[in-house]
């Protein structure tokens, strides 16, 4: 409100100039120029004619009166013309001042007002500026909503649980489970904060890469193994396919693929595939994919506000797009791009494909195989042995609660039930 008051004050100050500054206006300057252009040649002609005709003294009075009339007429013409010339600009200033700005073009691409080209350009520039301000305001709302809704709720929950752990005698098993839930939530919140920090950083600077020739298959195997150990939904096989080498920053690219794979695992119902393609790597799942009409360009934006409708009104209740935005920036840093498409084969469910396109891949092969284990040393990329794709819950680590990426990628969907989440309805007899 203070900013608005300042703005109003600035407008009112501009509207009431004082002293000599009242003449420091474009209209006055235009009037002066027109006046001088009209009057000076007339004055010269009249003086010359008077001298040639020998009109001096009282005989020159009619000429003087005529000159005065010419001066008044020139001033009036100048005032009227300058007003007409500056009308589009005055209209624009008035609209901006009243907050009733009309963009240069409406939604149908038609010109809203009959403005000269320069003022249209000004309108277009203001329009762009207002759009950017609107986007920034949306991002700020989403950022604040993330702080208020996405972070406050788990922090309050953590407080309740810590009180319970410290005050209430619980059986060892229950106490251990509570501790694991708290640790998992803590990791999730740290992940969310890290994502917010990364998105903020990637908005301002390039992703720094330390590139080296990397076995993309080994990279996908590592992601698949981690997926299998921690986050997959039982019954969904993870398939890794293809071979290829590329000059990339393995750690950074792995993070991007892991982001995509985590999210795909959350929505896949029967199929999840990580594959090396001839022009990059892809993460495919048979989930519902992006919302109808949505594009990567619109969703992979930092702090993309996602409104929620409550009682007929829309509220910003969190941010979305952080995960996708980070993946997009990583792809771009490698000279590629993030592409989304739906693939459908006859008799098969349609696949949502998130493809990180890379500039160059060597030794491409489309051989299909199951997930292989990852060596202990993260620097070593050669896979060893075979690991059957199985989803026994014995090996599953503590449950992962609602992942911010899930909301980040598919904000329109409820998070799929995972073995870790609390069942929708728990009844205590």
């Amino acid at each position, binding site marked *: 409100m203070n900013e608005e008051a300042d703005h109003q004050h600035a407008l009112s100050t501009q509207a009431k100039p004082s002293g000599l500054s009242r003449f420091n206006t474009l209209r006055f300057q235009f009037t002066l120029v027109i006046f001088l252009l009209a009057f000076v040649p007339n004055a010269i002609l009249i003086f010359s004619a008077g001298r040639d005709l020998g009109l001096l003294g009282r005989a020159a009075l009619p000429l003087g009166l005529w000159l005065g009339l010419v001066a008044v007429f020139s001033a009036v013409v100048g005032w009227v013309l300058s007003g007409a010339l500056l009308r589009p600009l005055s209209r624009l200033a008035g609209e901006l001042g009243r907050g009733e700005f009309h963009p240069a073009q409406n939604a149908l691409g038609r010109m809203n007002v009959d403005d000269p080209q320069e003022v249209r350009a000004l309108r277009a520039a203001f329009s762009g500026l207002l759009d950017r301000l609107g986007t920034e305001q949306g991002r700020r709302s989403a950022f604040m909503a993330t702080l*208020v809704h996405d972070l406050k709720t788990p922090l*309050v929950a953590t407080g309740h649980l810590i009180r319970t752990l410290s005050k*209430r005698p619980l059986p060892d098993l229950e106490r251990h489970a509570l501790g694991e839930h*708290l640790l998992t939530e803590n990791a999730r919140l740290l992940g969310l904060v890290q994502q917010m920090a990364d998105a903020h950083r990637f908005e301002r600077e390039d992703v720094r890469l330390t590139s080296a020739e990397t076995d993309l298959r080994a990279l996908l195997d590592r992601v698949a193994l981690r997926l299998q150990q921690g986050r997959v939904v039982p019954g969904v096989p993870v398939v890794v396919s293809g071979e290829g080498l590329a000059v990339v920053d393995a750690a950074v690219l792995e993070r991007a693929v892991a982001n995509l794979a985590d999210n795909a695992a959350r929505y896949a119902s029967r199929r999840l595939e990580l594959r090396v393609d001839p022009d990059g790597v892809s993460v495919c799942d048979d989930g519902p994919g992006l919302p109808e009409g949505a594009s990567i360009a619109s969703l992979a934006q930092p702090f993309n506000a996602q409104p929620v409708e409550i009682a007929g*009104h829309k509220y910003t209740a969190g941010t979305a797009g952080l995960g996708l935005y980070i993946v997009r920036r990583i792809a771009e840093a490698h000279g590629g791009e993030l592409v989304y498409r739906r693939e459908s084969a006859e008799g098969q469910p349609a696949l949502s494909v998130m493809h990180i396109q890379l500039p160059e891949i060597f030794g491409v092969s489309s051989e299909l195989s199951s997930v292989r284990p990852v060596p202990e040393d993260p620097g070593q990329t050669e896979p060893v042995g075979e690991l059957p794709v199985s989803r026994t819950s014995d090996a599953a680590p503590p449950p992962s609660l609602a992942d911010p990426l899930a909301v980040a990628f598919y904000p329109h969907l409820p998070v799929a039930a995972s073995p870790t989440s609390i069942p929708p309805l728990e009844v205590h007899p």
Partner: protein
Amino acid sequence: MKLVIADDHPLFLMGLGYALRDQGFEVLAQASDGLAALEACLKWQPDAALLDVKMPGMTGIEVCARLKREAPAVLSVLITTFSEPAVVQAARDAGARGYLSKETPPEELARQLRDIMARPDINRLPQVSVPRLTPRETDVLPLLAQGYSNKEIARSLGVSPDTIKDHLARLYIKLDAGDRTQAVSRARTLGLIA
């Protein structure tokens, strides 16, 4: 005192459950979405339902409204991080008996719940004054906030610019605003637009 609690955040649901049990409440069921909360309330007929506002499927406010019609004996209490006047107003209209912040400490939460159950007829929702907009005015506001001109709003809603002018005049009166900027600013403060 028997409760059904609902929140889409699993950890909050768990923490709230423990906190309320510690305070002597019996938590009959925990639900992670609005529909499950409604079903649990209809099935278990608790003394009160403690509902989050933003939940998948049905919002807590929609659950309140359904409970008011289908199980009037169940007292609906909302627990939320939303404080926008328009949401409070909607909760009141839906028949909520309480509107609590998620930050409320367990002891205070228990005290307020017991108060609500002891004297359910007292209006405990925060006092807010939110103008009641017609559906058309509700349609016009977001377009106004996006900086659309009267002509563009009219084209977008399929009505004449004069009709929009009338809607705007009424909106200005309801929002106590002198111009478009003030109207949008006031609507944002009241939570009528994001």
